[in-house]
């Protein structure tokens, strides 16, 4: 290096590279990532913007268990092939084996399309299907059943907290929805379209516990 002619910008360039590398390492370490994520599929920007606006409008409640180590995760649904028993929504979560993820609360947001000037009386059942999408009549668990009255089209949130912990045990999980209308109109639909801005999404508040973390019992 001593034999090289001196250039004033070389030191600055080296410092810049060093700081950029430090920033990368710091962020990856704090986000508990081994490497930068390579995105498996692209979520439409309109869906992202709409989901974030929806959550922002609803406000973020912070519970007593929340602290700065918490995560909020928004997962967008991918449609499963239709079957006679309802609508399949697939969500993917992945984590490394050494992370113990604890779900504090979770909500499924679903856009219901109801014809204008109509009040729909509905029953929505949400099932957790088996690991490999064992959907029809097989291995599935009822997570939530809700009676709801929907006037016009709009977003609805369904709390799933107690059962959501099981979601994080598997790599790829499917929610199956059954929507039963109690009127004579059968044209109420839940929107599921990967290219549509009303794509259903799941919001979870989670906390990662380090191995060896002990919780005092009271």
């Amino acid at each position, binding site marked *: 290096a001593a034999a090289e002619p001196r250039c004033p910008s070389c030191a600055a360039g080296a410092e810049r590279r060093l700081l950029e590398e430090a920033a990368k390492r710091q962020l990856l370490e704090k986000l508990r990532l081994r490497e930068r994520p390579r995105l498996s599929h692209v979520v439409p920007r309109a869906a992202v913007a709409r989901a974030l606006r929806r959550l922002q409008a609803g406000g973020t409640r912070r519970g007593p268990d929340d602290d700065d180590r918490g995560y909020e*995760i928004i*997962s967008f649904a991918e449609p499963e092939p239709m079957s006679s028993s309802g609508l399949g929504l697939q969500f993917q979560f992945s984590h490394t084996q050494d992370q113990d993820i604890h779900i504090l609360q979770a909500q499924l947001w679903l856009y219901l399309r109801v014809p204008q000037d109509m009040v729909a009386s509905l029953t929505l059942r949400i099932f957790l299907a088996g690991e490999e999408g064992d959907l029809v009549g097989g291995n599935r668990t009822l997570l939530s059943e809700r009676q709801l009255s929907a006037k016009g089209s709009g977003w609805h949130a369904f709390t799933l907290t107690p059962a959501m912990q099981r979601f994080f045990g598997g790599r790829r999980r499917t929610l199956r929805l059954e929507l039963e209308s109690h009127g004579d109109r059968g044209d109420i639909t839940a929107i599921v379209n990967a290219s549509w801005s009303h794509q259903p999404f799941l919001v979870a508040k989670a906390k990662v516990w380090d191995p060896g973390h002990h919780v005092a019992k009271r």
Partner: protein
Amino acid sequence: SLRCSQNSNFCCRKDYYVDFRDIGWNDWIIKPEGYQINYCVGQCPTHVAGSPGMASSFHTAVFNLVKANNIQASGHSCCVPTRRRPLSVLYFDRNSNIVKTDIPDMIVDACGCS
């Protein structure tokens, strides 16, 4: 906190902003658009280290009084962060889920002498 200038060698905060576009990370980090990676650098001589605004704690003031009075004391003050703030990050994970998290103590706001 003092921000570093060309003329000073004393403990100060050096500011540097990493733009995620420059490192090709803007495809998976939604917000913020960059990271203010400040750091502390500079000397902490005895007459500076114990002065108000530069001492990181009351311990520093006492320690520097002890040193100034030639009472046996080893070690010397270092320029360290004295105030930090968290960074909120909104990003895509490898399954294209959006994750929002607050990382504590990520941005150095002020520096002082230990």
